[in-house]
């Protein structure tokens, strides 16, 4: 298939990796809740989101492997890259913390991802447009579910209010990264392949204001951002996540599972 743009191949690959890695790493985190969530119903909801994200990761990473052209499939990219080759945002690799922090992380991510996929569904790269369009429905549901929980926890009890507030406090420094593009090659945006996420910020802030008003939570003063995920400079957490996730394929490199 031909890509209808003049963007450099590396930048294109790098961009699709970001999309896949975001989904993969967050799915991995959500999977940690399985069997340990506050109630069976929440256990099932978190697993649902994780499953959707694994599906997205599989599609994006599979496509990334094709763009890279070195014969790597989605599994090869997921299980055989080292930490500095991952391109996910720092938000998704943050440890789960308590349910309040998990919901705060999910709310920020899914609200952003929903806005992103809305635009990406119109990408000039038909493959990306197709994946985003397909994933938009489930992402809408993730964003709604997370928003409902933010309201429930914010409005619920004094303890839940504090806990979800603390959860957001942990996450605010990673929000700016979501909206700064820093592509390898600016033409990936100008050609219409990638979404200029800076343009999504106003809609994100307005969604946040609506949810927080209903949740009786105070709007944040965003702290100095922590950046780096998009160029492979991660938190200390990601290496541990990968050593767990990648253990089998790395211990038995000749095996097929």
């Amino acid at each position: 298939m031909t890509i209808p743009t003049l963007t450099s191949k590396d930048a294109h690959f790098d961009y699709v990796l970001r999309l896949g890695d975001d989904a993969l790493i967050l799915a991995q985190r959500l999977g940690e809740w399985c069997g340990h969530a506050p109630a069976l119903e929440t256990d099932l909801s978190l697993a649902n989101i994780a499953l959707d994200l694994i599906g997205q990761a599989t599609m994006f990473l599979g496509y990334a492997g094709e763009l890279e052209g070195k014969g790597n499939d989605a599994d090869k990219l997921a299980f055989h890259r080292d930490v500095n080759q991952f391109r996910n945002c720092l938000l998704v690799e943050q440890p789960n913390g308590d349910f309040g922090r998990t919901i705060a992380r999910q709310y920020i991510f899914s609200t952003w991802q929903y806005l992103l996929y809305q635009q990406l569904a119109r990408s000039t790269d038909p493959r990306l447009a197709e994946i985003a369009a397909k994933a938009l429905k489930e992402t809408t549901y993730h964003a709604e579910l997370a928003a409902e929980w933010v309201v429930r926890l914010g409005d619920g009890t004094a303890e839940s209010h504090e806990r979800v507030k603390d959860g957001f406090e942990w996450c605010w420094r990673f929000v700016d990264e979501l909206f700064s593009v820093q592509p390898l090659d600016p033409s990936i945006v100008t050609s219409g392949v990638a979404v200029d996420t800076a343009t999504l910020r106003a809609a994100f802030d307005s969604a946040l204001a609506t949810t927080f008003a209903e949740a009786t939570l105070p709007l944040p003063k965003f702290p100095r951002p922590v950046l780096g995920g998009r160029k492979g400079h991660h938190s200390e957490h990601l290496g541990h996540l990968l050593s767990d996730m990648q253990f089998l394929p790395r211990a038995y490199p000749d095996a097929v599972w």
Partner: protein
Amino acid sequence: MYTTEMSKNPARPAAPSEAPELVAAFEARVANDEFIEPKDWMPEAYRKTLVRQISQHAHSEVVGMLPEGNWISRAPSLRRKAVLLAKVQDEGGHGLYLYSAAETLGTSRDQMIEALHTGKAKYSTIFNYPTLTWADIGAIGWLVDGAAIMNQVPLQRTSYGPYARAMVRVCKEESFHQRQGFEITMKLAAGTPEQKAMAQDALNRWWWPSIMMFGPPDDNSPNTAQSVRWRIKRETNDELRQKFVDVTVPQAEAIGLTVPDPDLKWNEERGHYDYGAIDWDEFWAVVKGEGPVAKERVKARIDAWEKGAWVREAALAHAAKQASRRQKEAANG
């Protein structure tokens, strides 16, 4: 089994205060293979036995999420990860249907969970064994879900309507799980020498606990007769166990694995496999809570429940606030 009677004090058949004509009518309906529904009259002992059996089944589904959940983060491919996560999620769903079925008998989910946490309620002994390698995920699907199907297919026709209907949904998914587990094992058995050894080791460790799941032999299973009469159970422990052995041994042979029982051999006369003596001391020790990871399993459930208390309280508090806001709006509007 998920539903094996593990109580040493079986329920008494009829309380003296129960009107004999009601009991007789009930017994006749059951004997006639009619479904008993929540609003129907039923003997207290039937209700109690069912609550114990269904809640134990529900607990088994939920505790059963833990050994397999142990490998979600380490599944060796994206497809295996998704399939495993979906499987464990199914088990959680089974827990939900079953708690709901048990609730129709007048016991709340919270009460049942409390009984699990205090050790009053049991769950299947099988989940007190650890999952040490990826091959254990194959073995559990193949053997444990396989055994669960043997037990649960007849329960689709059990006498209590809500339980029977829950079993219909559950059984469909369990057959998927069994095939997926067998497929994992088959792939390992056909893989590298290390993978094949992993699969054999898993079969070695899971075989005996799996056939113990069906519960004590019939001559030492005090409740079987009554449960069969009440159509709460439709086949005896030994009948189900034999069925499982007969189906599973050829599957192991087909993929080149060896069932770890030197006494196992086909008995032409009986038309069944003969198998070696089961270590019932081990079974009863695990029932008593002495399984290798029993403490870890119960602790994980209690931790999840206690750490999640504030979330459940918040959801209730928010729902109550919303209801009162709606009331106020209605009054003002």
